[in-house]
């Protein structure tokens, strides 16, 4: 067996308790180990990506129990890509948290951070539906700690809402899994796929209920429209570097949708045919619309970034909901882009928030306005999907993949309209924050009304501003690399899509032909 597969879960799982128990009072050592862990995760993820790129699907049987009875981890191209994205996001975020001093504002930031990474990578690698639930809980419980990191009345209140909403989601997840188990008698994803295909269509009322419940759970995680309420308040009130890490958490929802509804309830399965795509597509379009309008209407830069994340999830899920190989390839390219773009926007928002408060109103200029303004400009271009950055390529791919679909005019209109509103909203926010601040008359007039209510956070000065900027530039470089190497990247995502739409390989790899 290839023991590398479990390494991305084991490494943070060992590191986090070590940081809590041994390095409890040594912040410097915590930082060293946390960064080293993130670098190690990156190295492991690179190894896994290289192994998976051959197209072979590898499994890891925990405790050496054979597949349908024990829990398996599965490494295919999709899970390797998602683990890679997690690692590539984790390193800049942890560097930023150190550089901006966020990790000094409460205890156990680094331990929680590692637990979060463990949950996310585990969710991407597992091949068992109940194990997916367990890893969801691992990443959620770490995220509760991270979300309320630093404390404060408003953040804690937002934390209560966030925890409540996610506990509801977990309960729903258990109901869905219970329903599926009652019908099929298994929870291994590959085995589920076999059993679901065997059930005659007239006996599948309960199965369809389970499929839709499961979709609801993943839609909560992915912040799809009617279930997105938790996201703006939670992300805008969380420490913004943490929100940047959470950019991968919404992707966990998208990943699960993609995995479950290609493998188990795939496009060929008669019982659930059209059940998911028909619901998901309009919801995704509404998500994009609401995200774009939210960007336009946001009065606070944290909320602006949160709605940006929602809008990019909308575009991503439009592509996912088409369930064709090209659209899935486009969706995966856009996943990589939107992870980096949303994280970048959150980090910039944090820089602005630390220097002048988060309100989108003209105020007297802050330190390093020029530099921050130019990075905001870059992140706005990426978020809105303008050339020359990867958002443009991603949107182009999504629209190209939607060309042969029935409602392609509607889809194009929503994507283009959404991009336009996003551009307007980001331009408005950018000019109010960065340009109008240099206009003395404008600032004076506004200051009388607005200044007293927005007291800037009593933050300690950034210990290593250079490190914070460096980590932001790493994300910018990631976006640039994604644009420059768009050719190889789309080829790789095309390979992923091909693998996803041939689920038989996955099933034989997991079950080793024992079913036949």
């Amino acid at each position, binding site marked *: 067996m290839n023991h590398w597969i479990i390494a991305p879960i084991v490494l943070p799982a060992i590191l986090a308790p070590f940081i809590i128990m041994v390095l409890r009072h040594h912040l410097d050592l915590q930082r060293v180990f946390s960064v080293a862990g993130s670098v190690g995760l990156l190295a492991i993820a690179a190894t896994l990506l290289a192994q998976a790129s051959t197209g072979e699907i590898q499994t890891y049987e925990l405790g050496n129990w054979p597949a349908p009875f024990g829990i398996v981890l599965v490494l295919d191209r999709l899970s390797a890509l998602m683990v890679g994205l997690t690692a590539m996001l984790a390193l800049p975020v942890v560097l930023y948290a150190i550089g901006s001093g966020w990790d000094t504002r409460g205890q156990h930031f680094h331990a929680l951070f590692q637990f979060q990474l463990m949950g996310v990578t585990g969710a991407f690698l597992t091949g068992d539906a109940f194990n997916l639930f367990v890893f969801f809980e691992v990443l959620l419980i770490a995220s509760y700690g991270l979300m309320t990191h630093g404390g404060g009345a*408003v953040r804690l209140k937002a934390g209560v809402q966030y925890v409540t909403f996610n*506990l509801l989601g977990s309960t729903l997840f258990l109901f869905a899994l219970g329903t599926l*188990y009652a019908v099929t008698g298994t929870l291994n994803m590959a085995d589920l796929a076999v059993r679901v295909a065997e059930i005659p269509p007239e006996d599948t009322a309960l199965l369809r209920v389970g499929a839709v419940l499961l979709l609801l759970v993943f839609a909560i995680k992915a912040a799809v429209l009617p279930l997105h309420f938790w996201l703006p*308040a939670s992300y805008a009130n969380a420490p913004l570097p943490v929100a940047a890490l959470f950019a991968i958490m919404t992707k966990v929802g998208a990943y699960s949708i993609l995995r479950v509804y290609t493998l188990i309830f795939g496009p060929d399965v008669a019982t659930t045919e059209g059940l998911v795509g028909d619901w998901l597509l309009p919801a995704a379009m509404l998500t994009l619309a609401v995200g774009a309008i939210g960007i336009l209407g946001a009065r606070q830069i944290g909320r602006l970034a949160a709605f940006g994340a929602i809008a990019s999830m909308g575009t991503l899920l439009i592509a996912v909901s088409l369930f064709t190989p090209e659209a899935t390839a486009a969706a995966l390219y856009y996943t990589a882009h939107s992870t980096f773009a949303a994280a970048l926007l959150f980090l910039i928002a944090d820089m602005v928030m630390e220097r002048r408060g988060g309100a989108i109103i003209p105020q007297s200029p802050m330190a390093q306005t020029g530099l921050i303004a130019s990075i905001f400009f870059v992140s706005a271009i990426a978020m809105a999907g303008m050339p020359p950055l990867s958002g443009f390529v991603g949107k182009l791919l999504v629209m190209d993949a939607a060309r042969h679909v029935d409602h392609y005019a509607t889809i194009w209109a929503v994507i283009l309209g959404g991009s336009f509103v996003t551009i307007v909203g980001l331009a408005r926010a950018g000019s109010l924050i960065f340009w109008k601040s240099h206009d003395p008359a404008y600032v004076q007039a506004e200051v009388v009304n607005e200044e007293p209510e927005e007291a800037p956070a009593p933050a300690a000065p950034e210990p290593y501003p250079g490190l914070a900027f460096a980590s932001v530039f790493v994300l910018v470089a990631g976006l640039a690399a994604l644009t420059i190497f768009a050719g190889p990247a789309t080829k790789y995502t095309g390979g992923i899509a091909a693998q996803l739409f041939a689920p038989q390989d996955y099933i034989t790899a997991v079950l080793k032909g024992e079913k036949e």
Partner: protein
Amino acid sequence: MEALFASAVGVLTAAGIFLILRRRTFPVILGLSLLTYAVNAFLFATGRLALNAPPVLNNYKEVAYTDPLPQALVLTAIVISFGMTAVIVMIALSAYLSSKTDHIDLPLAEEAGEDE
């Protein structure tokens, strides 16, 4: 027995959802606990209800047994929901202590937006 069991799950779920829709933290947490009880009972029943039967597979087809897997799942679910409830109680307590109110919604001014 099935009807009794099913209606118990239904009543627990309904009561849980009703309480979650309240505006104060305490009933919301109570509602979440009721909901987790409901889902635990539900999971327990997914292996079919069998009385006085051992949870072990055995060779004799005529001897009844009960499915052991849902019991393991319920155990996991109980542990997780118990831990989560403890976490939300702690967060809600510190939110109450720092803001002196246990209303679940954010104060509008501090939310800094006109959302929802």
